[in-house]
């Protein structure tokens, strides 16, 4: 599914990540790594948020060449989302839904499952960190992309929302979507079946047996 070829991410002269060759198959995968190991940078590069050299491809879509097609197939949810204070959840959801061609039924069901309906019209400046996280998860799940990248999806969420999120991931995974989840917390096997575990270490990515 995901293929890295001579991938390199640098910040000025500092090399943050370097992956010469790596493939990740479809499924639900857990991305581990210590603080500062480069997990978020990796996810941001995969999401097309940060520039990099080399190549990343998703199925046959090249991230550097088929930029629109690639982005249609990759969604991203930030670890600590921040949005302009004056925008409401509805403003953001409607905009993202339009660009990702999401149906109103999906917007409604996601909003209901993650509890965003309760604060749909309030401006983001009045949200708690948990509310911001719920909104970012709705935005990250909208549409029908083949890959969803979730950076620390569990932080600041209450337990009932965490269960709802597990259910949503299972539901979308059964429909053929893949997930790459970065987290410091364990995913309970009974609630979320993890297919493979990867670790970002020494500026590269390894599969953990």
């Amino acid at each position, binding site marked *: 599914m995901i293929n890295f070829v001579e991938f390199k991410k640098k910040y000025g002269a500092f090399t943050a990540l370097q992956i010469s060759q790596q493939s990740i198959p479809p499924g639900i995968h857990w991305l581990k790594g210590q603080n500062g190991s480069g997990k978020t940078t990796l996810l941001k590069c995969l999401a097309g948020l940060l*520039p990099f050299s080399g190549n990343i491809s998703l199925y046959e879509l090249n991230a550097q060449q088929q930029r*629109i097609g690639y982005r249609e197939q990759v969604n991203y949810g930030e670890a600590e989302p921040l*949005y*302009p204070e004056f*925008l409401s959840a509805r*403003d953001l959801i409607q905009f993202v839904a339009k660009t*990702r061609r999401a149906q109103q039924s999906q917007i409604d069901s996601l909003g209901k499952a993650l509890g965003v309906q309760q604060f749909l019209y309030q*401006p983001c400046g009045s949200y708690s960190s948990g509310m911001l996280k719920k909104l970012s998860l709705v935005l990250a799940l909208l549409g029908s992309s083949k890959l969803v990248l979730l950076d620390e999806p569990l932080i600041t969420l209450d337990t009932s929302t965490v269960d709802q999120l597990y259910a949503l991931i299972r539901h979308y995974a059964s429909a053929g979507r893949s997930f790459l989840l970065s987290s410091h917390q364990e995913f309970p096997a009974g609630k979320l079946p993890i297919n493979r575990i990867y670790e970002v270490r020494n500026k590269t990515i390894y599969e953990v047996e």
Partner: protein
Amino acid sequence: MNKLPIDLRLLIRTLGVRFYQENIGFFFVLLGFGLGILRPTEHIYLIQATVGSAYVLGIVLIAWGLFCLKAIVFTSQQLEAPGYEWIRETTLLPLLRQIVVWMWVMLLQCLLPTIYVGIIVFQAIYYQQWPSVALGAVFLLIVYTLGIWRAIHKTYHPGTGRTTSMFTLRLNRWMVKPVYLWFGIALLKQYPVSLLLTKLLSLGLLLITAQLYMHDTYDYRLLTVTVLASGFSHTMLMYRYHHFQHISLLFFRNLPISLTQRFSTNLLTVALILLPEFAVLLRQFGPEVGWVTAGWHIPLLISFLMVIYHSRLLQVIPEEKFFQWLFYTFVIYFLLIMFSIPPLLLLLTNFFVAAALFRIHYYHHEPSLPE
């Protein structure tokens, strides 16, 4: 700077230097007006007129007051901004120390008004205009007290005043805000003083030039130079737009939106910000320089802002170098206009440069590098 205490050094870097960096376009125009248009003797005459007339003094103090208000609002917003929470640790300092620290920050941010009003006060003492002395001194006292109080209050009470009005909720229920309005709303909500000052400067330049056309005969170049100055006075707003697009809306880069759509959104956003200038150009200049000439200057003004905005995609480090480039660009434009390069050619070149910068650099721009 290294000899200063650590708390003061950090605040000066975070709030003082940053204030000047963010308002560089405004200072360009201010310095251009102060050192380029007005001669030293005219400054002295202006200050003497200020000292002798309560009306003129009032106007000058209101203008500098707005500048100081901009600095105070800037500090308040930084204290609320994510990543700046550590500044609230100043509450652990003794109160007197806090006052001294914030006074230094205020002094750095409001250096220009302090010097200017200080000169007015000294002139007033020389001419024994005691009401002007008192007014100037009270002005400085109020500004500094307000600034210090506001900063200390914000550090003790962060997040106050964030209640959602019924009007906002009703508006959000009634409509989904279109994306091209987002930055305009951000300006009105988060940077009203910056917006006001930029518009005062930009519209003021246009209105002064309109008066010149009414009383004398000039060719189109005076209007083109004024449009250039008006465009560059928006530099700071364009930097805010860049920050808004690439930091506040970082997730946009993940969305499947074509470069053409993104460029069109930028164009529409910039055009909406310039609506007041369009009205002045048509209303004030149409009858004097001709409707076609006045009309051509509308897209020309948009094109200047598009170049400034998209030039930010060039990752020039250190930042000072970038501002040098910007200054030279202004001078080059000025010379081109003086040598009668047709505005249409400038307009087409500007749009071409803006589009090329966007196309080449958008996906290669590193949004997470310090700016």
